[in-house]
């Protein structure tokens, strides 16, 4: 067990804990987060594992495989957050619109 392994594995586990306590009622996110984090811990502890998987799926080096998967996960995350922001924006618009309509004032109406 080299220091770098502890340095990388512990924050990942802490992250899982954080998300589990913060994200409520979102089984899918929780599960996928646990899977991703456990895979991360496994790779940190047994680096040669990534090379074995990489060779098996047709990628030369384990590091490359990790980067590819990381890229895909990052992109999915972006899309998830984008749609969340859109939903929040929509709610905000509805609230602002109702406020506006409630405060509408006719100027100098005959």
């Amino acid at each position, binding site marked *: 067990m080299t220091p770098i392994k502890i340095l990388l594995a512990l924050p990942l586990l802490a992250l899982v804990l954080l998300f589990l306590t913060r994200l409520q009622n979102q089984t899918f996110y929780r599960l996928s987060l646990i899977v991703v984090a456990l895979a991360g811990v496994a790779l940190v502890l047994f680096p040669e594992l990534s090379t074995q998987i990489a060779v098996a799926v047709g990628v030369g080096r384990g590091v490359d495989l990790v980067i590819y998967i990381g890229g895909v996960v990052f992109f999915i995350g972006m899309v998830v957050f984008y*749609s969340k922001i859109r939903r929040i924006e929509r709610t905000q618009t509805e609230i602002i*619109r109702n406020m506006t309509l409630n405060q*509408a004032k006719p*100027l100098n*109406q005959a």
Partner: protein
Amino acid sequence: MPTSNASTFVVVPTYNEAAALRQTLLPLVYEGYSVVVIDDCSADNTLDTIQDLSLHYLRHPINLGQGAALQTGMRYALLQGAEYVVHFDADGQHDHREIQTLLAPVKVGEADIALGSRFQRANDVEAVPVLRRALLKVATIVNGVTTGLWLTDAHNGFRAMNRRALAAIQITENRMAHATEILSLIRQHRLRYREVPVHIIYTDYSKQKGQSALNAFNILIDLILKKLLL
């Protein structure tokens, strides 16, 4: 004439247009239209310049975008019992004398919504700056592909509609993509539509305020993302 115009609500979204807004609104108020100004949280003295006019003033407490402002105005008009609604630009691009031309097919019951077009009469087309002409052509193709509505003009903010269209059109694109969204909604709700030739007045002021090519790109991305995500 003025009394019969009161059931026509002219919706004018505005954002930092204090310099031009009053001139745009004066003839509308004079002709007896119910004018609804939606101030999208302008930072200038918009309200001061129109304080004395007889109209409906609504103000978003934060800036949401032109699409959102139009939707707020339309909801207001619907609640106020509007018979017809007209979308009208604040910067003076549209000619108030053409409101009745635009409304004509709606009033006689041939269409639920009339869309202004700069590309149906030679002299209207000539008034459009060359670069913008090319850009709009591309936009009509994008609109055609994404909405199934093949029109001669795109992003022409001059529209007129009846209550049926007013109730059907619920804009959710807060920014500029609302122009294309409206076409999608027309298609989706099977509204009867008609293009009507209109003349757009390009002043240095309105050109400077208008959309850039870069903006067109942003609209396209917005629409693609919407298709993918919602």
